[in-house]
């Protein structure tokens, strides 16, 4: 069976390319040849018990990069591993860590994963390795789900703690004295999936790690830092920012890889006059069906949770059996079951959101179908990398939608294949974030005169603490700054925005909880009348108990799904400063679901509409905005120009602030169709209640932001707008006119 699958895939690919209809849709192809494994013998310095454990687990030799990782870790150097998916990154940190733990019975290690699910997955592997050594090396997950008794045990005995940055920030560090044994022995801090710690979240993680290093030092621990990263453009630079120290980069993989084929699939034009293309989802359905018939294990990535349901359902209707869905919102037990079924080969086809993009072990897959542009080249390669995990031939297909960005990629595939991947950006010295963690650090341990913290040297830190003392947060006595406020600073700073309280989805008839939805998505996905799918089975929301956070649903047979119609409005609450067209201050961003569309499951036609009556989701935050006056553009042109200008400004802003585009919200006001001489207002707001420190920084550098945005649009050689300037398919000319009015001079 193992040999039959690749054969099926190879001949299927030949058939696709030979078929005139199919072949015409495969608009770009790239092949990467198979790569031989480069092995080395187990290093003689490796602790004998660990070497034997590896033998027992079927690892008689190492890949070259694993051996190098071991040597670096043993020399207590800081490094980041940035080899491809499935190249054995986990062993790159487990080797030096377990070697150290075996040699010194007081040594400990901290593993940080971006999500709880990933921590549990990786701990299982670390535990298996620990057990195979025959030594007593307790490995413990410590997160919000860990029961009290297990917490005590972890504090008393664990040699490896696996947790997430949020838990480290709010639980371990504030209680560090109870973890004195653990911090005293701390030899390694491992941060897996460092690319996930980018933007504002990355700023927080970098500062949590500064606090960690400080607390460890107090107890006598001096950990070295190891990072593991998916494909990003700047793994070394990014890890160095996160760890606040120089790191070495390990990106030469010695792992084997089968031949890989990548396609861009552009569905055919079905309406020539309107230029409308066939649905990407239908194309995905057809391709996955053929892959399944060819005996190929396939993962399909779609962009939203709702689309997981639509595609699972469509595949079922098309006669594909054993299709599983996977997304956030499924109960953990269901997710574990899907993972197990995939690993064991009981399920051959899975439809997922980005939830399976990270390193959850789902075994070996042969094909990855990416439906719609996933937002970045890094995300595309990450998803494509889910296929071909065991060195067999594999393939990945990007199916373009009708959207401008997708069509841009279809027209310019070299941009995807040859222009590298995005850098991960983060700003550890964001003043708002730094200030928050400075207070957490002062709470955890009094600062001594002469200490430094991050970018603050002794003098600057003294000055900053003096400012905090004036506000009554700290007091100074005998050369020490002691926390002196009832504020528990870690509770004031959630690392990823306000905690999402989940809404439960309850089957009215069975009285059972069948799924959950986080608060942010609740208004859009479980309003009354919404169709909510779970692995393709449709449920209608009969009643939404907003205060009780429960949606009551009933199983239905329907031929449609629903899509919420939302409306966003930004109102200025207070102007802090303004200069010419630019201002910054406090704003209220109101989002409201005003209704929903019913879309046919197969044709995606709009077949109906429903009303929704839900409260606004309000966010008070800070924003920097520009008002474009005197551009001379008529109504609709001004609107389109503002959209292009906003796109360019947002990307310039994210780049300038070393932030992630998702941290910057964008909104345009003042461009109604009826306005004769509209003066569009472009808001870039902190996408976090209370603000995240980007807006006033942007205002301070407003000249640079506008200049960069203008340069991006002016210098770009593209004909009709692309991701690098005003956005794919956007009107560059109009955007240029709008941007011109935003200069102060």
């Amino acid at each position, binding site marked *: 069976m193992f040999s039959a699958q690749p054969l099926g895939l190879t001949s299927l690919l030949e058939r696709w390319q030979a078929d005139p209809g199919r072949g015409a849709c495969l608009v770009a192809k790239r092949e990467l040849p198979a790569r031989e494994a480069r092995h080395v013998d187990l290093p003689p310095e490796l602790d004998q018990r660990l070497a034997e454990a590896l033998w027992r687990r079927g690892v008689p030799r190492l890949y070259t990069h694993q051996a190098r990782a071991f040597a670096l870790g043993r020399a207590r150097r800081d490094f980041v591993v940035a080899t491809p998916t499935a190249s054995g990154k986990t062993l790159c940190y487990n080797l030096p860590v377990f070697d150290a733990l075996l040699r010194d019975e007081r040594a400990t290690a901290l593993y940080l994963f971006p999500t709880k699910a990933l921590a549990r997955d990786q701990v299982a592997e670390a535990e298996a390795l620990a057990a195979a050594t025959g030594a007593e090396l307790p490995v413990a997950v410590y997160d919000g789900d860990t029961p009290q008794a297990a917490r005590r045990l972890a504090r008393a005995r664990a040699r490896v703690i696996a947790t997430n940055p949020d838990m480290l920030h709010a639980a371990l560090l*504030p209680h560090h*004295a109870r973890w004195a044994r653990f911090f005293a022995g701390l030899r390694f801090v491992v941060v897996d999936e460092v690319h996930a710690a980018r933007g504002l979240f990355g700023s927080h993680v970098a500062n949590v790690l500064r606090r960690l290093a400080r607390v460890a030092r107090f107890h006598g621990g001096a950990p070295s830092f190891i990072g593991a990263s998916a494909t990003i453009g700047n793994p070394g630079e990014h890890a160095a920012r996160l760890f606040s120290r120089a790191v070495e980069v390990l990106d030469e993989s010695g792992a084997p890889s089968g031949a890989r084929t990548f396609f861009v699939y552009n569905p055919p034009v079905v309406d020539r006059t309107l230029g409308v293309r066939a649905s990407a989802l239908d194309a995905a359905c057809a391709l996955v069906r053929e892959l399944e018939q060819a005996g190929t294990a396939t993962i399909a990535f779609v962009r939203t949770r709702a689309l997981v349901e639509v595609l699972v359902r469509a595949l079922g209707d098309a006669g594909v059996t054993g299709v599983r869905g996977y997304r956030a919102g499924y109960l953990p037990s269901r997710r574990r079951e899907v993972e197990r079924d995939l690993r064991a080969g009981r399920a051959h086809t899975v439809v997922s959101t980005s939830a399976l993009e990270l390193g959850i072990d789902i075994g070996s897959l042969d094909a990855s179908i990416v439906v719609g542009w996933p937002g970045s080249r890094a995300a595309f390669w990450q998803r494509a990398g889910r296929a071909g995990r065991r060195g067999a031939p594999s393939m990945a297909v990007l199916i373009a939608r009708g959207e401008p960005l997708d069509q841009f990629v279809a027209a310019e595939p070299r941009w995807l294949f040859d222009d590298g991947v995005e850098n991960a950006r983060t700003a550890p010295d964001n003043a708002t974030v*730094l200030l928050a963690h400075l207070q957490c650090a002062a709470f955890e341990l009094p600062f001594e005169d002469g200490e430094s913290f991050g970018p603050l040297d002794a003098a600057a830190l003294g000055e900053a603490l003096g400012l905090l003392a004036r*506000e009554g947060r700290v007091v100074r006595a005998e050369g020490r700054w*002691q926390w*002196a406020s*009832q504020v528990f*600073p870690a509770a004031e700073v959630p690392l990823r925005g306000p905690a999402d309280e989940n809404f439960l989805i309850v089957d009215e008839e069975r009285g059972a909880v069948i799924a959950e939805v986080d608060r942010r998505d609740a208004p859009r996905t479980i309003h009354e009348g919404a169709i909510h799918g779970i692995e393709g089975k449709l449920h209608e929301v009969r009643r939404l108990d907003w205060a009780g956070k429960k949606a009551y649903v009933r199983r239905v047979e329907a031929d449609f799904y629903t899509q919420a119609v939302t409306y966003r409005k930004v109102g200025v609450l207070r102007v802090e400063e303004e200069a010419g067209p630019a201002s910054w201050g406090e704003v209220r961003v109101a989002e409201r679901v005003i209704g929903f569309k019913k879309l046919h499951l197969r044709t995606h036609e709009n077949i109906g509409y429903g009303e929704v009556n839900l409260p606004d989701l309000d966010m008070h935050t800070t924003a920097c905005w520009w008002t474009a006056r005197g551009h001379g553009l008529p109504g609709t042109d001004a609107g389109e120009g503002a959209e292009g200008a906003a796109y360019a400004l947002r990307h310039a802003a994210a780049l300038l602030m070393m932030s992630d585009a998702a941290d910057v919200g964008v909104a345009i006001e003042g461009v109604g169709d009826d306005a004769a001489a509209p003066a569009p207002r472009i808001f870039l707001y902190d996408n976090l209640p209370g603000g995240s*420190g980007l807006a*006033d920084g942007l205002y301070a550098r407003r000249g640079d932001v506008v200049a960069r945005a203008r340069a991006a649009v002016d210098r770009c050689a593209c004909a009709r707008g692309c991701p690098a300037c005003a956005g794919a398919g956007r009107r560059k000319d109009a955007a240029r006119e709008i941007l011109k009015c935003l200069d102060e001079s």
Partner: protein
Amino acid sequence: MSGRELIDNLKRRIARFDTSAAPARAASRLRVAELPGARDERPVRFHTRLRVESSDVAGTAVLAGAAFDSRRALYLDTETTGLSTTAGTLPFLIGYAWFEAASARPTGRAASAQPTGCAGELCVEQLLMRGPEDERAALERLADRVRSCSGLVTFNGRSFDVPLLEVRYVLSRLRSPFAELPHLDLLAPSRRLFGSRMSSCRLVALEEGVLGERREGDIGGHLIPGLYNEYLRSGDASGLAGVVDHNRRDIVSMPRLLAVLARKVARPLEEAEDAYELIAVGRMHLGGGDADTGLRCFERAARIATLPRARRLALVALAHALRRRGDVEALAGVWERYARDFPGENLGYVELAKVHEHRRRDPAAALKAAAAAPETTESLLRRLRRLRARIAPTPVPRAAATA
């Protein structure tokens, strides 16, 4: 960003803080050492002596679950800048008391003399920090005192004061004196004895409800963290006099509360004020291995209970104790009483049926008891079916069964 730029940036942000916590410049500043009764040492020390009745030895042992010498114990209570045991919480006032005759010299570590008499001289010492810089000295002094005692008595110290102090010893790089020290936390037994009749089991409430004393002019405990932070910011200690007073009263109440608890445990039939106390004390004795006293408590509780809830609890406790002991006849008697007293409930009938069926091997009596149960439930119907089948083991034709 340059260092200057960053500092300016921080400055702007700090300026937007909620300033209600900012230090108010006090008109006159009272130093900590100028508080009434303060000795100007480091930390500032307060000392009081008073006579307090000592507690019953046997009763104390039941409360502590082991022999526990309340005369050689240290009574400990702290006031802190917060309610969690996180690293930012400072126990700025550490108060403790010991019985003078029973302990060695105030700072000595030598073994102590044996207790004498029923009432003893209680020495209360309180260490108030002028600031975090006094903490180390305070912790060292406390450690000396703890090492000269044979046990610890607190109120909620098991989950708060002791873990917090252990954290402080770690942070000051000192050895904690608490490891392995017998610890009697009065909160748990107080809840068990008085929880049903007191709306709150806070120490102040127990003083009023159990010791019969009302605190006058006491500051609310919830204000204390704010008062100390306010002092740290302003340098004016006048707000702390009330805190020192509050802490002293808490400490003095501990040996007195212990005396009451120990008396009630030692002589439950004479001392208990209601059925709930008897039930709680009975359970303690039962847990301590003295089933006879436990049974006597439950028996008395069942007799004097006027409220249905108390009577129910008493009978159930009695039944459990009798079942453990294997006294089938008495057990059946208790459930008969239950069924008689609560004829609207299934429990008595069903339990009686179980005794008949499983202990006495008398399915007919069991069926009779179960059939008398007032409420028709699934499980009762199953029981009745099973019992009927046991009495008439030959399969009954379907038609006959339904007839």
